[in-house]
């Protein structure tokens, strides 16, 4: 089903045709173990996997390439796909669709009851955007920690060039899992939790446009996670997160896990972005016109466009890889009319926007936090928004800078060099905005602000090193080395993760009504900032000195630097543990409640209590002024939270009339 049209009907007065009587008692609740939740989903996944595996063996069990190679990619892929469908069916994703198909009204009653239930609702297919946001939050932190553990394993192996903790096979498998886990699962690190939770609050809506799609986009991520990790049981995949064909076509079953997991995550990204775009366009409160949209919402909107338009190409490429490995099409086999370049083009056509899918939300979060703690309006709001739009547009035209040495279209390299360098202009806007906002500000060094400042420092290094990579002669030395690795860790780990931490410390009081411990937060920041830089700054030198990426052994002369990096990375891991301790301690054990507006922010989301009540706003708010009017004398309040009767209907009537004329 492409688009789910049926909205929630529980708050509608009157009776829908064919619907339940409004006054009729709700159907009796089933016992908990019969209601769809994680346990039924797991059961569905197991049944689906076994079914798919059986089906694959029936279809392909006798094929010579299956018999000889001792592996059956058909069975594995069908197992994964049907397992995922079973997982979703077990959650009850398809029940409303089936009701619609058989002409019965959609019942939102159980979900409505879940909205007030306790912990159990977080394990269900909940349609409440606040529940989905928190589900995403815990999920993303879990995925991040898994990827981080794999990074520790990588650095353990690289402690010595000659003594090996892991075999080269295990090492490449770990590298592949780490890269894929971080690049694909972390794509929705900010839009998933903060986006789903805060977007309706920031634009004055009670809901997202398509709650079922929203919930689906989350529930696909655990499926992708399990499928991806299951690749380890088949020996992993030896080709990193980029999966260059023909290496990925010739690899063993671990490659199926990679392709299916990345495909599932791609679909999740499309759905997530789709929902956010439609919500921003259609669900803004009266008065929330484009010039008053918080900058974080601009970041989410532009990121979502990247997701919706780039991720389909990723899904298509993964699908081609799967058909090459199973039904033996020859997309990537040169002898049979395919081309290994085709994969590189398709993958990076997604892969470069993906980089900005990771970076843009970070820009949004720090730009959103900056005015609050500078106590000044955001400098150059329009420049910031235009920069994000510019990055979005340009990011579709730079993908071949990953292929400067590959021999693809060598005469086009100056063009891609130019577009790549052009993209640094809109990216530079975030520094203009930050520096302008600092001008004569009253900077308060709270934990979120510290992380935001850390973001600017790291992203400066990441951005400047990116300019080196855009230049073909310089890139010839740097391409495929630890220099590139250090560069994108500065933009993603130093950018996205620092921004995520800033956002988390800033908005957790809003999302959970609980404040994270600030002392632990400061310790967390300083250890993370210091050891992050201690880990990744030397890696620029390591790469320049000639260490290629994804190697389990290296030149003996680089051992000292690598040891320094490894030890720093373990300490970086310790600082992440401090965060985990702080998160668990503050949310589970200490629970210091924070209900008001602790940062004295003008954001619309802070104008309601924390955590927000069901439905977010008692009435549809009418937005009266922009969110960053700090220090403006006689600035009107952000919004009228209880507008008089008629104001709202005038707003939408005008909009509807305008639409009708078109």
């Amino acid at each position: 089903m492409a688009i789910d049209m049926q909205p929630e009907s529980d708050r509608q007065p009157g009776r829908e045709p064919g619907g339940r009587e409004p006054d009729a008692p709700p159907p009796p609740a089933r016992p908990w173990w019969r209601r769809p939740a994680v346990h039924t989903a797991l059961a569905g996944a197991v049944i689906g996997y076994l079914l798919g595996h059986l089906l694959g063996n029936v279809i392909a069990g006798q094929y010579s390439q299956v018999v000889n190679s001792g592996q059956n990619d058909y069975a594995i892929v069908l197992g994964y796909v049907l397992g995922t469908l079973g997982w979703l069916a077990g959650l009850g994703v398809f029940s409303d669709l089936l009701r619609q198909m058989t002409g019965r009204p959609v019942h939102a009653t159980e979900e409505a009851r879940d909205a007030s239930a306790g912990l159990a609702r977080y394990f269900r297919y909940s349609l409440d955007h606040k529940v989905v946001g928190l589900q995403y939050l815990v999920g993303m932190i879990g995925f991040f920690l898994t990827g981080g553990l794999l990074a520790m394993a990588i650095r353990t192996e690289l402690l010595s060039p000659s003594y090996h903790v892991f075999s080269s096979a295990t090492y490449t498998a770990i590298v592949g899992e780490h890269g894929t886990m971080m690049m694909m699962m972390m794509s929705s690190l900010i839009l998933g939790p903060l986006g789903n939770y805060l977007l309706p609050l920031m634009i004055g809506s009670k809901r997202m446009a398509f709650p079922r799609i929203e919930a689906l986009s989350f529930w696909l991520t655990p499926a992708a996670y399990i499928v991806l990790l299951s690749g380890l049981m088949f020996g992993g995949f030896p080709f990193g997160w980029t999966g260059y064909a023909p290496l990925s076509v010739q690899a063993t079953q671990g490659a199926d896990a990679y392709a299916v997991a990345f495909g599932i995550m791609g679909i999740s990204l499309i759905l997530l972005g789709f929902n956010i775009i439609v919500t921003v366009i259609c669900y803004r409160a009266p008065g929330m016109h484009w010039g008053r949209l918080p900058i974080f919402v601009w970041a989410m909107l532009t990121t979502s466009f990247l997701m919706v338009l780039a991720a389909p190409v990723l899904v298509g490429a993964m699908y081609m890889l799967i058909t090459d490995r199973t039904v033996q099409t020859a997309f990537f086999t040169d002898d049979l009319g395919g081309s290994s370049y085709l994969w590189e083009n398709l993958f990076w056509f997604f892969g470069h926007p993906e980089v900005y899918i990771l970076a843009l939300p970070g820009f949004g979060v720090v730009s959103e936090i900056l005015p609050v703690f500078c106590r000044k309006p955001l400098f150059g709001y329009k420049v910031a928004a235009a920069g994000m739009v510019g990055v979005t547009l340009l990011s579709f035209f730079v993908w071949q800078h990953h292929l400067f040495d590959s021999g693809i279209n060598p005469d086009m390299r100056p063009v891609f060099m130019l577009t790549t360098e052009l993209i640094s202009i809109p990216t530079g806007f975030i520094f203009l905005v930050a520096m302008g906002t600092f001008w004569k500000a009253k900077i308060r060094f709270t934990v979120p602000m510290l992380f935001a400042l850390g973001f600017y420092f790291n992203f400066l290094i990441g951005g400047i090193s990116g300019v080196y990579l855009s230049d073909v002669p310089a890139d010839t030395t740097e391409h495929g080395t630890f220099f590139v690795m250090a560069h994108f860790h500065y933009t993603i780990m130093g950018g996205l993760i620092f921004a995520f931490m800033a956002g988390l410390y800033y908005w957790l009081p809003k999302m959970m009504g609980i404040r994270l411990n600030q002392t632990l937060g400061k310790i967390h920041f300083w250890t993370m900032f210091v050891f992050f830089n201690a880990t990744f700054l030397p890696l620029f030198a390591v790469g320049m000195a000639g260490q290629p990426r994804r190697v389990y052994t290296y030149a003996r002369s680089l051992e000292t630097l690598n040891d320094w990096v490894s030890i720093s990375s373990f300490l970086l891991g310790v600082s992440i543990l401090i965060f985990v301790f702080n998160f668990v301690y503050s949310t589970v054990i200490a629970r210091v409640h924070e209900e008001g507006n602790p940062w004295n922010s003008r954001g619309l989301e802070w104008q309601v209590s924390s955590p927000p009540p069901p439905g977010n706003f008692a009435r549809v708010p009418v937005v009266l002024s922009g969110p960053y009017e700090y220090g403006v004398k006689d600035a009107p309040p952000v919004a009228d939270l209880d507008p008089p009767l008629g104001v709202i209907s005038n707003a939408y009537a005008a909009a509807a009339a305008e639409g009708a004329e078109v």
Partner: protein
Amino acid sequence: MPAADGTVADGAGRPEPNHGLRIFLLWLPVALVADLLIWFVWGPHLPPGAMSTSAATQQSAIKIMSVMAAPVMALVLVYGAYALVVWRHREGDDEDGPPIHGNTRVSVTWIGVTSVIVLSLAVFGTVELAGPAGAGAGEGNTPIWRPSGGTPLQVQVIGQQWRWTYRYPQFGGFETTSLMLPVGENVQFNITSLDVIHSFWAYQLGVKADANPDINNVAYTKPEHTGQVQVRCAELCGLWHADMTTVGQVVSLSAFNAWTATARTQLAALTKELPPYTLTYDPNAVAQLGKVFQKAGLSGAGGGFYGSQYPVQP
């Protein structure tokens, strides 16, 4: 408004200092010193060295970009440090900052300056790329930037899981596992692969080009000093990617000629068995495959992944 250290203006007190001038004066020496250090102290030692024309180009590109990047970076850092010190929140000051929403002049200047820097970098990069015959990067099978002069020394680089071999077509087409180059001669690397994508990276020569199956990727360089060359694989190619290394040699022309003469004789028996020199090799086109098949049970040439549909299978 409390004026703790006098830098913040209050209604009756000292006038607001010129922050812009102060930041500029702080920035200028930092940027100057950084640039001078980069140019004169660090520059000559920047990787990948100056062993060949392409390596020297890359070194100068990295040097010039560092000289351009350092002032920009210094500006942001100096500004940030100044802001964090001077414009920090003081205890007891609960007022908000001045309501500055933006400044068109500042924004336009910023955009103009960054655009100029970026465009000049793009022009600079293109010139550097075209100048020394592609700057050592892989240029595909129809290179548009070539060295001037006669036909360069042809060296075919063949990547396979997990080792490099080299063919010298101008010397009878012998194939060897060692890379030997003469100093002062233009070299054309023809890089290809027999299975998956590798990347031929001769570090000191500043040559990096992907080895793609069935595709010839050309890179040029001209060694200018003798010495050792570390060859690595820069594209993950499977289990032993990290071990796909060799050490090449750049030697004098006479030593090179002596080496080729020796290798040519020593490897004559092998060279007879090799397929004729071409720019790419079909990995599964095996001469006399039928004969092999008849003599002994054939097990898995080309893997048989595509079964009997494979055009070159018996």
